[in-house]
C-alpha cells in the first residue's frame, strides 16, 4: 500500500531535474548513513546533502529518523554505517566539539540554553576565552550587540535567559550560531514557538543567512512553511529517504502523502456545532487570575465560556499562559482570583480529585511527564485517577480482575495498539500513549474535557483518530476546550476560537469566518481585530 504511492511520486520527480536546478557542489554530504538502536533501525542507508546558500528541509513524522540523522551530523551519535563528507573531504565527528570546530551549528527544538546564566554567558559557553582561563564577557557582549544590529535580533547580553520570552530565547540561539560563524546550521522545528508574524521575521533572518552563503537544514512538519522556505525537501519515513524534491516540483498534498505513506483524506471536519442562546453553558471561567512560575501573573483576569456540545479552541504562541490556564482549572495551580464553574457550581480551589469528580477530565500537554507513568503498565495507567472507585477496589485492596476487564474494553474501544495490558506504557508509541490517555479521560463520559496539545508529536494517523474522537465527544454533548499552539489544529477543530496573548484573551472568534491573519495579529497581542469581530 505504501510503496506504490511513493514510487509514483518518485517517478514524477526524475533525479535529473533536481540536478539541473541546483548545480553547486554540496557543502556537506551524508552518504548511506545507517544507525541501529536496540530493536529499532533509526536510519536505513540515508543519503542527504546540503549546499552553501541553500535551505534544505528534512520532513518526516515523529520517529521517521530526522533527529537521529541530525544527532549524527552534530557528533552526538556515531553512524553504524556510512560516512560524512564536508566540502568533499571525509569527516568524522566524535562529539559536538568536532561538529563545532567544523562550524556546524544546531538549534534544537528544546532550546539548549542554561536558564540561570546570562545571554552573554550562554553565548560564551564552550568557546575559548581571549583572557585564557578567565571569562571575557565584555568582549562577548560587544560582539553580541554587533550581531544583533547586523541581523536585527534585539537581545540584551546581560539579561538572564530565564527572564526572556520564548521568542527572545530563540534569538539567543541564533546569535549563538552566528557568534560561532557557522557555515551549516540545523534548525529543528524552529517556528513552533512563533506567531505567524514572527515566523515572517524569522524567515527574513534565514534569508539573510542564506545570502551569507551558509547552508541551512530546516526540520519542520508545517507543510506551508516548508513550501515557502525550502530550496529542496527530503522526506524521511521509517528511517529511509522517501524522496528528495523541490517545492516547485511538488505540492503540499504530495509531501504529506510521502511523509505518511498514503494519500490522506481531506480534513474530515464534522458540521460546526449549532449554538443557540438556549445551549447550556457547561464550563466557564470568570476573572481568573493565576501566578506563573516566576511570580509574575501568568493569567490576568480572563473570562471564557464553553457550551455543551461545543469545542472552544485556545490559540496562542507557546508560553502565553496556556499551560497555567489548563493547570488552574484542573486544580493543579493555585488561583489568585476569579472562579471556575462546571454546570454553574464553583470548582475553584478544589483538589484535582474533587474537580475530576465534578465531571471535568483533562488531557495534559506533556503526555509522558504528566499524562502517564512510563514504568506503569497500560492497565495501571488506565485507572490512575479512579483506582479508588468501588468497582476497582474494596477495603483498600485493588481488584485486578475488574481493572483488567475495564482496560481491555477501553484498549479495544480506542484502538490502543499494545501487546498486552501489562506492557510498560513507555514501550508504546507516542500516538498509542495519547490514545490511552484519551481513553482514560473519556471513559467516564465527562461533562467537560480540557485537551492541551492533543496531537503534538503524534503521528498523523493517530492525530486524525484523536480529532475524530474529540468531535464525537463534542457531538455527544461534552463541553470541550482544546488548547493548541498548532493553529491549523485549532482552526480545524474548534467551533469558536479564543486567542490568548500574555495572559489575556485578545478576543473570541467564530471559527467559521476567522482568518489566519486575523488570528495571527491577535496572537501577537493586537486586539483591535477582535473588537470589530465581536459585534
Amino acid at each position, binding site marked *: 500500500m505504501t510503496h506504490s504511492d511513493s514510487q509514483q511520486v518518485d517517478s514524477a520527480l526524475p533525479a535529473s531535474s533536481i540536478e539541473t536546478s541546483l548545480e553547486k557542489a554540496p557543502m556537506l554530504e551524508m552518504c548511506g548513513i545507517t544507525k541501529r538502536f536496540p530493536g529499532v533501525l533509526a536510519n536505513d542507508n540515508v543519503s542527504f546533502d546540503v549546499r552553501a546558500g541553500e535551505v534544505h528541509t528534512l520532513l518526516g513524522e515523529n520517529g521517521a529518523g530526522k533527529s537521529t540523522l541530525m544527532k549524527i551530523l552534530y557528533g552526538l551519535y556515531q553512524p553504524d554505517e556510512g560516512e560524512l563528507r564536508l566540502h568533499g573531504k571525509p569527516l568524522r565527528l566524535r562529539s559536538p566539539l568536532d561538529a563545532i570546530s567544523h562550524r556546524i551549528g544546531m538549534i534544537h527544538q528544546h532550546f539548549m540554553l*542554561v536558564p540561570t546564566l546570562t545571554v552573554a554567558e550562554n553565548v560564551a559557553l*564552550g568557546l575559548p576565552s581571549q583572557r585564557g*582561563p578567565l571569562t571575557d564577557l565584555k568582549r562577548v557582549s560587544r560582539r553580541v550587540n554587533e550581531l544583533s544590529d547586523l541581523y536585527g535580533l534585539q537581545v540584551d547580553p546581560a539579561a538572564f535567559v530565564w527572564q526572556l520570552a520564548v521568542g527572545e530565547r530563540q534569538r539567543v540561539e541564533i546569535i549563538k550560531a552566528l557568534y560561532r560563524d557557522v557555515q551549516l546550521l540545523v534548525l529543528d522545528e524552529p517556528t513552533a514557538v512563533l506567531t505567524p508574524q514572527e515566523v515572517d521575521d524569522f524567515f527574513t533572518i534565514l534569508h539573510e543567512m542564506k545570502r551569507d552563503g551558509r547552508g541551512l537544514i530546516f526540520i519542520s512538519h508545517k507543510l506551508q512553511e516548508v513550501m515557502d522556505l525550502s530550496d529542496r525537501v527530503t522526506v524521511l519515513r521509517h528511517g529511509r529517504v522517501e524522496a528528495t524534491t523541490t517545492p516547485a516540483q511538488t505540492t503540499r498534498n504530495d509531501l504529506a502523502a510521502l511523509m505518511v505513506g498514503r494519500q490522506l483524506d481531506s480534513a474530515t471536519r464534522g458540521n460546526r456545532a449549532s449554538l443557540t442562546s438556549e445551549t447550556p453553558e457547561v464550563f466557564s471561567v470568570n476573572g481568573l487570575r493565576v501566578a506563573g512560575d516566576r511570580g509574575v501573573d501568568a493569567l490576568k483576569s480572563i473570562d471564557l465560556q464553553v457550551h455543551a456540545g461545543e469545542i472552544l479552541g485556545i490559540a496562542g504562541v507557546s508560553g502565553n499562559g496556556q499551560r497555567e490556564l489548563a493547570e488552574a482549572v484542573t486544580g493543579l495551580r493555585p488561583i489568585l482570583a476569579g472562579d471556575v464553574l462546571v454546570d454553574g457550581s464553583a470548582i475553584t480551589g478544589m483538589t484535582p480529585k474533587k474537580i475530576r469528580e465534578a465531571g471535568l477530565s483533562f488531557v495534559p500537554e506533556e503526555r509522558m511527564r504528566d499524562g502517564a507513568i512510563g514504568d506503569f503498565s497500560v492497565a495501571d495507567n488506565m485507572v490512575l485517577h479512579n483506582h479508588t472507585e468501588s468497582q476497582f477496589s474494596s477495603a483498600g485492596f485493588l481488584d485486578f480482575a475488574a481493572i483488567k476487564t475495564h482496560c481491555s474494553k477501553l484498549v479495544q474501544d480506542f484502538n490502543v495498539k499494545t501487546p498486552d495490558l501489562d506492557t510498560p506504557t513507555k514501550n508504546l508509541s507516542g500516538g498509542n500513549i495519547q490514545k490511552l490517555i484519551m481513553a482514560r479521560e473519556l471513559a467516564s463520559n465527562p461533562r467537560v474535557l480540557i485537551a492541551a496539545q492533543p496531537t503534538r508529536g503524534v503521528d498523523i494517523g493517530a492525530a486524525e483518530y484523536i480529532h475524530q474522537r474529540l468531535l464525537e465527544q463534542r457531538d455527544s454533548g461534552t463541553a470541550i476546550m482544546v488548547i493548541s499552539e498548532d493553529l491549523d489544529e485549532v482552526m480545524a477543530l474548534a467551533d469558536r476560537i479564543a486567542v490568548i496573548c500574555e495572559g489575556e484573551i485578545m478576543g473570541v472568534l467564530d471559527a467559521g469566518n476567522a482568518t489566519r491573519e486575523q488570528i495571527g495579529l491577535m496572537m501577537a497581542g493586537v486586539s483591535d481585530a477582535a473588537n470589530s469581530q465581536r459585534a
Partner: protein
Amino acid sequence: MTDVFTTTIVVATIASGIRLATPFLLAALGEAIGQRSGVLNLGVDGVMLLGAFAAYFVVLDTENVWLGVVAGITIGICMGVLYAVITVFLHAEQGVSGIGIYLFGLGMSDLLFQKLVGTPLPIDQFSEWSVPYLSDVPVIGVMLFQHSPMVYIAFLLVPVVAFILNRTTFGLNVRAVGESPESADSLGVSVRRVRFCTIIAGNALAGLAGAALAIELGIFQQNLTNAMGFIAIALVYFGAWRAPGVMAGALVFGMVGAIVLQAKTLGLIPRSASDIAAMAPAIITILALVVVANRFRQPAALTKPYFRGD
C-alpha cells in the same frame, strides 16, 4: 574588670567558632563545587576520615604536618577518582553510592588505624601563625588573625572558589553542566570532564578537611569526624550553593557550637539541659534549610546522571 572579662569571652567564643567552622568549611566548599556541576557526594564523611587517617599516619611517621596535609589531599583525590568513575562513567545512583563511600571510609580508616597504629599516639600539630601587624590589632587580632594556617587556607578558599565559579571559563562550564548538561554538551563542553574535575576537587578538599582536623587535634580515633561530613553537605544547601553562603553557614554552625560550649564552660546552661543545648546546631540547620529551600533552587541537574542523546 567585668567589661574586659566579657570582651575576652566574646573574642574567645568568636575565635572558637571560626576554628570549629574550618573543617566544615573546607568540606562544604568541596561539596559545593561538586554540586554546582550536578553531583551530590554523600560520602564526604568517609573521605574526610580517610584523609584524616592518612594525614595522621604520615605525620606520626615523618613529624611533618605539611606532608600530612599532602597525604590527606592525595587520598581525597584517589577517592575522587573512584567516585567519579562510579557516578560519571558508570551512572550509579549518587545518593546510595555516596553512602557506600561513607561506609567504606568509616570502616577502612578504623581498620587501618587499628592495624597500622593501634595505640592513639599524639602527633605534631599546626603551630599558630599570627598574621603580621593584623594580629596586633586589639580584639580583632586575637579573633581573626591568630589561628592555625588551615583556618586561613579555608577562608581564603572562599573567594578563590567564588572567583573560579563566577569568573573563569571552567566555572562557567561547571555552572552550565550543573544546570543544563545537555546545553553544555551541545556546545562542546564535556560534561564528563567537567564533572570529573569537580568531583576530584571536591574530594581533595574533603581529604584536606580530614587532614586539617586530624592535625589540628593531634590525634586520630575511630569515627574521628563524628558525621561532620554530613553536616558539611547540609551547609551547602544552607549556603544556597554559593561560596560566601557556604561560609556563612559554616560560621553559623561553628558559632552556635562555640556559644553552647562557652555557655556550658561558664555554667550558664544547667548540666541537665546540656543534651538539649547540643541539639541547637542541628535544629538551626533544619530551620535554615526550610528558609533556603523556598528561596533558592538547587542546580537543576543535581543527582541526575547525564546520558547523551536522551
